[in-house]
């Protein structure tokens, strides 16, 4: 589309200028319309005739009278409807609006008014509505008049509108135009929030020239950050699995050696710990780039299964919540996240209580323990990778301080959040929050057979 391309080349100054020009043009058009209306404006026949006649009389009498008597004479000639005043060198107000039609009407009644150089103007807004005007006497002194005609109000109203129109209407219009021009800039702001996350995408180059340059620079920056993160991930992956082969060799060599007793066990334990470190490192990397599509998962069954598993191992674990709660998520990572949180609670708290709650927008999974909790100043820190609180939370089973960081990453990748807080009753509460899945509501599942729906209790 060549027209759009041509528009896109416009820089920001050109656009602002075009907007100002458009506003001015519109203002001009509105004014022109108003002037046109004013110039054809006419009073009613009778009213115009009376006004013309009285003005002619006043003109004649004041011309004949002595200058000293003129102010008094003008007052005498005034009435409720027509105020007259005389001044020796009165300034004539400039006609802001051309009332040509009205002038022609008045002169038509009394041609003498033409020679008195009749000039008409609308009264200032704060006056009583009406028509004003001036006549020039023979000695160049000025007779001003003001007529309180009811009929001039549409003109006065038009006058007010003309004054207010630019602010009332053209400003929003200009604002809209600027708003549209700056839309790519706002897109840039939104995109910048996703830099370094899996949601980061290059932004389409659009908008004024300056903004296009900015978007180019932004996309380049985003790519550099992605590359850095990629390199970081590759390094961790390399550690995570390339080290497993040498470790496997070490294990087999150890098995072939004739070491006895405690030494052998200690070496086995060391290798096992290294294996766990690599495993948690790999989980951490995997958590950020979920590959599988989301699927329907019974979160209640998942939580209960983890709790039942812990109970079967002889741990003190409890579950409270519904028997069934469907969410859309990826099963492996989510199970790992919940498992990490439960194991963490068991390790530091000795007992765990998992509460599952269904909300309109969120599903909340609270994992609570009775342990020492976490010092408030460290609550945010423990979600960072490789952070381990050395005093209270001595040695993590995962060994690297990655357990909570992995859970946090996984939940964010699933569109949820993880927050930690100390319970008032003591112990830690980890609150995992996932987006609610509306398909789980009864009646919405098209897969259900009608027979099933009839039997469904709700």
């Amino acid at each position, binding site marked *: 589309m060549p027209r759009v391309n041509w528009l896109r080349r416009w820089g920001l100054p050109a656009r602002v200028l075009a907007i100002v020009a458009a506003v001015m043009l519109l203002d001009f058009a509105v004014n022109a319309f108003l002037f046109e209306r004013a110039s054809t404006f006419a009073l009613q026949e009778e009213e115009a005739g009376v006004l013309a006649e009285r003005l002619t009389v006043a003109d004649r009498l004041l011309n004949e009278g002595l200058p000293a008597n003129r102010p008094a004479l003008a007052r005498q000639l005034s009435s409720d409807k027509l105020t007259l005043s005389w001044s020796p060198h009165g300034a004539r107000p400039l006609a802001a609006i051309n009332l040509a039609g009205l002038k022609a009407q008045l002169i038509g009644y009394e041609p003498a008014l033409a020679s008195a150089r009749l000039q008409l103007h609308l009264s200032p807004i704060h006056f009583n509505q009406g028509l004003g005007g001036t006549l020039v006497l023979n000695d160049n002194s000025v007779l001003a008049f003001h007529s309180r005609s009811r009929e001039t109000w549409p003109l006065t109203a038009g006058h007010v509108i003309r004054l207010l129109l630019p602010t009332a209407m053209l400003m929003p219009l200009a604002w809209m135009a600027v708003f549209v021009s700056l839309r790519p800039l706002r897109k840039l702001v939104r995109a910048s929030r996703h830099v370094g996350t899996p949601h980061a995408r290059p932004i389409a180059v659009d908008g004024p020239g300056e903004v296009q340059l900015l978007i180019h620079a932004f996309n380049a920056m985003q790519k550099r950050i992605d590359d850095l993160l990629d390199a970081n991930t590759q390094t961790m992956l390399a550690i995570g699995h390339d080290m497993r082969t040498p470790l496997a060799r070490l*294990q*087999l060599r150890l098995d072939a050696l004739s070491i006895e007793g405690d030494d052998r066990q200690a070496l086995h334990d060391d290798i096992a710990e290294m294996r766990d470190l690599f495993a948690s490192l790999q989980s951490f990397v995997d958590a950020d780039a979920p590959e599988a599509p989301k699927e*329907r998962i019974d979160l209640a069954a998942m939580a*209960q299964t983890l709790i039942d598993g812990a109970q*079967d*191992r*002889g741990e003190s674990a409890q579950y409270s919540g519904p*028997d069934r709660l469907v969410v859309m998520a990826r099963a492996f990572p989510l199970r790992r996240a919940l498992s990490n949180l439960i194991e963490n609670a068991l390790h530091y708290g000795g007992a765990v209580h998992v509460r599952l709650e269904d909300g309109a927008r969120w599903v909340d999974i609270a994992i609570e323990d009775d342990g020492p909790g976490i010092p408030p100043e460290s609550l945010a820190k423990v979600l960072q990778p490789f952070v381990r609180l050395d005093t209270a939370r001595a040695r993590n089973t995962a060994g690297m301080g990655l357990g909570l960081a992995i859970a946090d990453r996984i939940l964010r990748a699933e569109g949820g959040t993880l927050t930690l807080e100390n319970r008032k009753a003591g112990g830690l509460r980890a609150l995992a929050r996932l987006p609610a899945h509306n398909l789980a509501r009864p009646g919405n*599942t098209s897969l259900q057979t009608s027979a099933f729906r009839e*039997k469904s209790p709700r």
Partner: protein
Amino acid sequence: MTAKSIVLVEDDPALRLLIARALRASGYDVQTACSGAEMWVLLDHTPADLIVLDIMLPGTTGIDLFRRLRREGDTPIIFISARGNEEDRVLGLELGADDYLAKPFSTRELVARIGAVLRRGAGDADKSGGRTELGFDGWSLSIARRELRSPEGTLVDLTGAEFDLLTTFANQPQRVIGRQRLIELSRTRLSDSSDRSIDVLVSRLRRKLANGGDDAPIITVRGLGYMFTAEVSRG
């Protein structure tokens, strides 16, 4: 009894040597290959009783090798992987591997797994059981993935013991299974193998299988045991 022959496919020379040595010490006849191509040459000459395959081989990936091996025969395969994640394990088992080992592993572990797979391959008619899908009342049970899905397609987690119990039930529908038999079958899974723990397992299973207003298809036969009442289809 002649020694069982094992083909080991591993690209890391030192590890290949170490594994081969350990297996020979355990009485197996081991031949080694460093790539898929070498493996095919070996298999052409002598058929193997079992293949140990490293999934991260150069050239053809382990997965591709795997598919071809499965197409051309049913030699038991144990695959070893440098990626220890759950997804890999499931992928391997789903492709039809008989077992999965993550590096690092001990000699004892490897020998035990090989022994178990060879024993299973020897007499068990249920050898292809690793690839079965069972269906009942709209539910589907994937033995390979160890997954249970509800009629709406929702993934419903089970503990290992619950899964084994459900598999036992689904393999013998409409038949009363005694408590004692169930305890024996799940002995490996449960630390406390008593009547009570079987009852706990059954009640957990019932809770997970209850769908809407439908009760789980497991009924208690007083004094005898349990019976799985649903019709089971195999896919």
